[in-house]
């Protein structure tokens, strides 16, 4: 197990460097004129351009810029964005909001999705099953760019059940609507996945055995069916975290949550290399960690899975 962990962590380090390198290279390749991008449509005077170019090493080739960045990183310095703000400070402010949003979305989606999936799986071909099928199909087919403003208009502006936007330092209540929007797509997938898995496991030999032993229905479903059915779902949740971060770019914009998504969006539009790489680095770390946790949870759920 320890060896496995170490191996995974080393892989993570490699992934980290590879990913930041690629992102930095992509940013650089796309970089035409970051100072102009920052200034918008105004002309920049030559003197200002010169001074800023020197300050941010914009005239150096990409590999040296990357070198400067990595050098800083090893000294615990994430660098400064092109607007002169510390990226570590930006990260510090942005992460809590996004993490809260993503966790709420996952919890919301998992809770409802899994329960609906289990019930639909047990009562296959019932009205409940068909209804969830239709609802989940609708949810999956609406892209988040459509769903988010729609929900905002309906529940935020028209009905006023929730605040229309969450803003900085949002309350739990204010984050509910964005989290539901963000989790909607995942919810549908979780529920479909759970349902299939439950249906399959209900027919499994060990379930028949358990029933034959005279265990109660609750115990059969709760312990034997559910635990095994959750394995594919949990795998998916881990991978899905990445998708949630991507969805956060839209959701955070619509609901005005200053988080990772909105910072990344701004970094990309202003060709702010250090800013984008800083945020992507952390995203990579989250991805690696999430997948690690998923792999470890396998062992908890399924004793047959053993790691060398």
């Amino acid at each position, binding site marked *: 197990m320890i060896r496995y962990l170490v191996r995974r962590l080393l892989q993570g380090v490699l992934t980290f460097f590879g990913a930041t390198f690629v992102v930095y290279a992509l940013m650089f390749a796309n970089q035409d004129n970051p100072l102009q991008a920052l200034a918008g449509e105004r002309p920049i005077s030559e003197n200002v351009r010169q001074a800023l170019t020197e300050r941010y090493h914009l005239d150096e080739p990409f590999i040296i810029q990357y070198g400067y960045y990595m050098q800083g990183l090893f000294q615990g310095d994430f660098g400064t964005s092109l607007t002169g703000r510390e990226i570590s400070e930006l990260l510090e402010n942005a992460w809590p909001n996004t993490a809260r949003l993503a966790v709420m979305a996952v919890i919301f989606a998992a809770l409802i999705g899994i329960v609906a999936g289990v019930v639909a799986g047990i009562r296959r071909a019932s009205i409940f099953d068909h209804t969830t099928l239709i609802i989940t199909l609708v949810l999956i087919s609406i892209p988040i760019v459509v769903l988010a403003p729609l929900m905002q*208009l309906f529940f935020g502006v028209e009905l006023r059940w929730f605040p229309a*936007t969450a803003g900085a330092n949002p309350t739990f209540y204010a984050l509910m609507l964005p989290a539901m929007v963000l989790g909607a797509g995942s919810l549908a997938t979780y529920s479909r996945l759970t349902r299939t898995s439950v249906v399959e496991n209900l027919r499994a030999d060990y379930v028949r055995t358990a029933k034959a032993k005279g265990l109660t229905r609750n115990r059969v479903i709760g312990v034997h069916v559910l635990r095994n059915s959750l394995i594919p779902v949990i795998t998916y949740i881990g991978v899905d975290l990445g998708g949630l971060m991507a969805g956060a770019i839209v959701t955070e914009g619509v609901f005005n949550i200053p988080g990772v998504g909105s910072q990344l969006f701004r970094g990309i*539009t202003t060709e702010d290399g250090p800013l984008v790489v800083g945020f992507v680095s952390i995203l990579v770390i989250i991805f690696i960690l999430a997948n690690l946790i998923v792999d470890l949870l396998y062992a*908890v759920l399924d004793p047959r899975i053993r790691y060398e």
Partner: protein
Amino acid sequence: MQVRRFAALAALPVVTSLGLVACGQGGDEASESNPSAIVSIEIAEPQHLVPTNTNETSGSQVLAALFAPLVSYDEANKPVEDAAESISSTDNTVWTIKLKDGYTFHNNEKVTADSYINAWNYGAYAPNAQGNSYFFEKIAGYADLQSTDPDDDGPQKAPAPKANKLSGLAKVDDLTFTVTLSAPYVDFKTMLGYTAFYPLPAAAFSSEGVLAEGYEEAPIGNGAFKMNGTWQHDAKIEVAVYDGFPGEKPKIAGVEFRIYQQLTAAYADVQSDNLDVLRTIPTENITTAPTDLGDRYATSPASTFQFLAFPTFQPDFAKPEVRKAISMAIDRDEIIKSVFKNSQQSARSFVSPVVGGYREDTCGASCQFNAANAKTAYTAAGGPATIKISYNGDGGHKDWVDATCNQLKTNLGIQCTGVAEPKFADLLSKVEKKQDVGMFRMGWVMDYPSMENYLGPIFTTKGSSNYYGYSNPEFDALVAEGTKAADEEAAIAKYQAAEDILAVDMPVIPLRFGQNNFGYSTKVRNVDLDLFQRIDLHKIEAVS
């Protein structure tokens, strides 16, 4: 069993820490009543909050609350003294600025001539890389504060400039200073209303010419509002009424500038009374805004000027006759109606209606839609059979460019395609390299209300935004004479003569003049947006 327990332990801390993060802080302030009310205004995250480095509308909106300008503009957009007692000159070269007594910075420091001199020197000094440094260009000694890179592009660094103080600034006494320009300039007083010319307190500098670390987080100004706490990045900036302000008192207790990433989010907030003022209605909502907001949807004149530029260096567009024919084939009113839902106005002049000296239809027949004449003229002049119109894809220009192209196709019988470049910067760098971009879209927002602010940068040979290679010595001379004219009227006469040359040469096609479209909640009234897209914080009132 061993394995399972370890796995659970390894997973636990990460999961719980994520969970802990999920439980955060909250709290909202209750709404108060008039006139102790706090009004919330939408802004985007400002790039900077130093007067000499702020040139976007969000930052200027915040600074407008914190600072009092030397001059402000009256109904006719003429400059009137504000923090200044008088601004006078006999020859338009040496200007004497007398300050009103009694103004203090928010840290009780007295506003003196030095507050201005130090701030302007800081702004003009090239190594400080201030975005507004070009505003000090006209002051004597500016060139000595600049330096050029000896080999243009690394590896040698540019040497330090010769001087770090503008020789044109001189203190007379505590409340008086003189500004000597390198050449007479009639509009100098008008310029002084711009953000770049605010004063800075001694507390802003850690040592001479060095801005104190952290000043930008809580700028100290001389205006009607002072910072309430510090700049909360990506969240909000709060200001409260400054009791020591000798000028006109605002009718509210403070302002919360709320930072939005997207205008659509702010629009939803205004609709649900969560936000008081939205300075720009997002394009997506412009059609529904009048019904959504009713009489809380308002418009006011803006200084923006949108036009199509010709790469005059390309043989295809070298002839003015071709350019005029294209202009004549565009039905501006139709596009404004169908694409912009009447949220802008047709432009048939080369300067905006908001400046003194504006005349209607200076462009003449070339800007009047006439399909038949356009086609005859175009064929006679031998215009190109295919045209491209380039634009930046991130600015919502596709619709009107496509509409324009369709009109050209129908009316001139040519091929026309709209070409999107990802960003405006990409478009500009292609134009600078003289690559074939065809016609391209351009826009202009003025810095101060003067015809010169349009004619100079966009059309003179050395203009900072003249990307299309237009050059006419006669035009340059007229603009230069205008700036040196004895008074405003004489200047305007020269500028208008220059504008007439543009109508003959037609280097660009004027298309539209902008309009501010803004909205507000049911909790405020007397909301007014000025030419710089700033809410008038002295006028706005809260409804209790």
